[in-house]
């Protein structure tokens, strides 16, 4: 659960159609964003519903850096007002659709940044962004040998000799 702090109404202005939200990143950067933009995030939507129930407005503290948060906001801003099948809780899960062209450029970042974005998207419950990141990571390692995958992901072979030679895991990867 995020830490929620009370905020002064003057910090988060706005009533009616274009209400603003105050998001606070882990590096203590305050980012004001329109509620509409972040409505793609189920997590934020739930928070906002909570605010309405208690008639109190809060800043939402998020456990990732402003750099990552800004990327997520950039994504949400780009698709503001768009219907994305992945974000529809009532829609069937999408099949093998390719990564959208804009998403490909948006996610053309280094491995660690990509992992941070996917974690943030998962935390904020933005399914479409999680899906695009997952596809991007899958694209990175698809068709590679096991050794190449380890190199890309920065992990080492941590199997014991017994695990490595287990008969059910023979692989030519």
């Amino acid at each position: 659960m995020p830490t929620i702090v009370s905020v002064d109404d003057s910090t988060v202005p706005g009533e009616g159609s274009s209400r603003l939200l105050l998001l606070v990143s882990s590096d203590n950067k305050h980012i004001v964003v329109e509620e509409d933009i972040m409505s793609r995030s189920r997590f934020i939507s739930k928070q906002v519903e909570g605010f309405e129930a208690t008639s109190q407005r809060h800043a939402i503290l998020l456990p990732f850096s402003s750099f990552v948060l800004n990327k997520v906001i950039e994504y949400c801003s780009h698709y503001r007002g768009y219907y994305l099948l992945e974000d529809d809780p009532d829609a069937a899960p999408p099949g093998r659709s390719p990564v959208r062209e804009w998403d490909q450029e948006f996610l053309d970042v280094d491995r660690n940044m990509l992992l941070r974005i996917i974690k943030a998207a998962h935390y904020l419950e933005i399914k479409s962004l999680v899906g695009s990141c997952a596809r991007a990571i899958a694209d990175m390692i698809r068709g590679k040998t096991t050794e190449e995958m380890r190199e890309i992901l920065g992990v080492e072979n941590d199997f014991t000799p017994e695990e490595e030679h287990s008969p059910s895991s023979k692989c030519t990867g």
Partner: protein
Amino acid sequence: MAAPAANSLALAPGVQAPSRATTPSQLAQEIAEARRYLASLRRTRNSRVPVAQIPVEILIHIFSFIKCHPRWPHRNPDRPPAWVAVTHVCQFWREVALSSPLLWSNIVTYNMHWMQETLARSKAAPISLPMYVNHSTWELPKTLTSVITHIIPHILRAKKITIHGANISSYVQPLFEHAAPWLEVLELSDIRSHFDNRNRILLPRQEALNLRTLRLKRCSFMWPIPTLFSPALTELKISHMLPEDRPSLLQIRAVLLTMPNLKILVLSDVLRKSPDSTAFVVDPASSTVSLPFLQSLSFTAEKAVDVVSFISQLIVPSNASLHLLCRTLDGFNVNENHGDNPGVSHSTPVTSTALTTSTSGLSYLLLSLIQFFRFDSPIVPGAERDVSYGCRSVGVVELDGDSDPRRDWCLLAGTHPRLGRYSSQHRHQITGLSEDYSPVWNACRLLGLPWQDAPDREHHITSILLNACLLLPLSKVDTVIISCDLYRDPALWWGTFGRLKHVKAVVVSGYALGGLAAALCGKGRPRSLSKASVLGGIVEAKNQDHQTREGVLFPELRHLKIENAYLGWEGVMDDLIEGLGGWRQNQELGKPGHQADRNPLFSLYIDHLSDDRQEEDRKSCLHRLIARPTVSTGIDGPDGLQWFCHDWATTKLDDYFW
């Protein structure tokens, strides 16, 4: 080389340096312990790298993307599925992959070891059973029989069964002896070249209540299959039924009446052929089949009349995609007379986005559609109606009806460069068209116009075509294919197609090129296209965008293909150059959204010029047309224009811009 100091081998606390008295087996044991310790250190390290922070559910998500992607190397019966490589990256990934039964639900049936592994790892999850049997990877029938024996205990959780192979009926029958309550997709495809009814697939004993998709290809079975023809079906694809198994129109109709949820319907070579010279007679009082959710309909039959009989029984959404194919207009059966080479039927099929038929059948079907086919919005001639139907392509091809059609077809067979090669062997395919099956004759019949008594037949034909095209839902048409010499008159181009503002491609041949060229440069254009008289009573919704470009024929033209045309015909080249030039000028009028660079002619394809000029003259014509200093076959013309010049060889249209 000096031996390392004993204490330098003490890798970690708890690992003792070996003494000189240690036996080789003890040393091996210590090495193994050291390796285990090393593995645990690496595991700890791996748990702290960024990739380890990915939540498990996302990791499963990533694995599923890797697994499903078709770019993995093709299956090899001696190797495990390629995606399994991810389970060898690290221990955590392996744990995650093995703990997710859904990842293993696509059972590997081409490798016995991996089949058992995937069956076990999928635990109780619903499974897909793809069995692609070909002789290079299977030892038939032993392997398939063995596979099925292993699968039967798990058939209860089968969600999708796909079997593709030769003579599959005898092998798959055991599968149908058992209930498959979760089955949603069943696909059976037999690849044998000659099949008979000795190995008919017997009906599954248990009803597949959850079946949504049924695809049967070259399967021998008795129509219908009550246990599979479920009312819940959303996709039904049946093709290449054995002739003696084929149902009648009434039998098909009876089945479709029970499937109101169909979204995709494909029936190819399923309908029993009607007796020669007659169409199926359906009781006019019987109710039509309503398929309100249909998105795509593909229907293939030998005879055009049978296609018409079938579609006359349906009511479908107006935006459904239609693919209709008939091989012949008369009772002639290509298969019976020419073995297994139906591809040499009298014409090359014209493929379009929404409507497919053989060339001569096309006009017949177009006209028949008007008469018989029931869109869910009524077509009332003369009344205002929504013209935004889904039809995307229209063609009037080889429709020369200004003289004896039989003679014309003979002439066509002898002179048409594409059809000519069939003329010696298969002449009767081309010339076998009797007057009864002449598209023009049928047009007259369907529209109630006299054929023999027409005082000005050409005028009547023109009217017929015009009215037919205007009656069709054409506002979204993007392709026009004209090989009819009547279209040498530019007024006919304007009259028929002047209102179609979204045409992207035109294929034109013969004298019709002259009409197109003249129409492109504005000749024959009526004063106003907004008059109801031009539209034959159909009133199209006013559109400001259309109004501004009213003076341009095909303002969005991107592709032009000229086939067998006579460029040397008087004025054609001049008109064409002016027409295309004028067309470009019209883009430069500065109207919003229609800048010069927005509507480039992407491709110009010239195929087999019917021109008696010398080659140098021909090149000269082409120079003028494409405004290039030299002529060569290639791409990259001026102003982004791509062009192809293909003088002698006949190449498929699809190879270039379809």
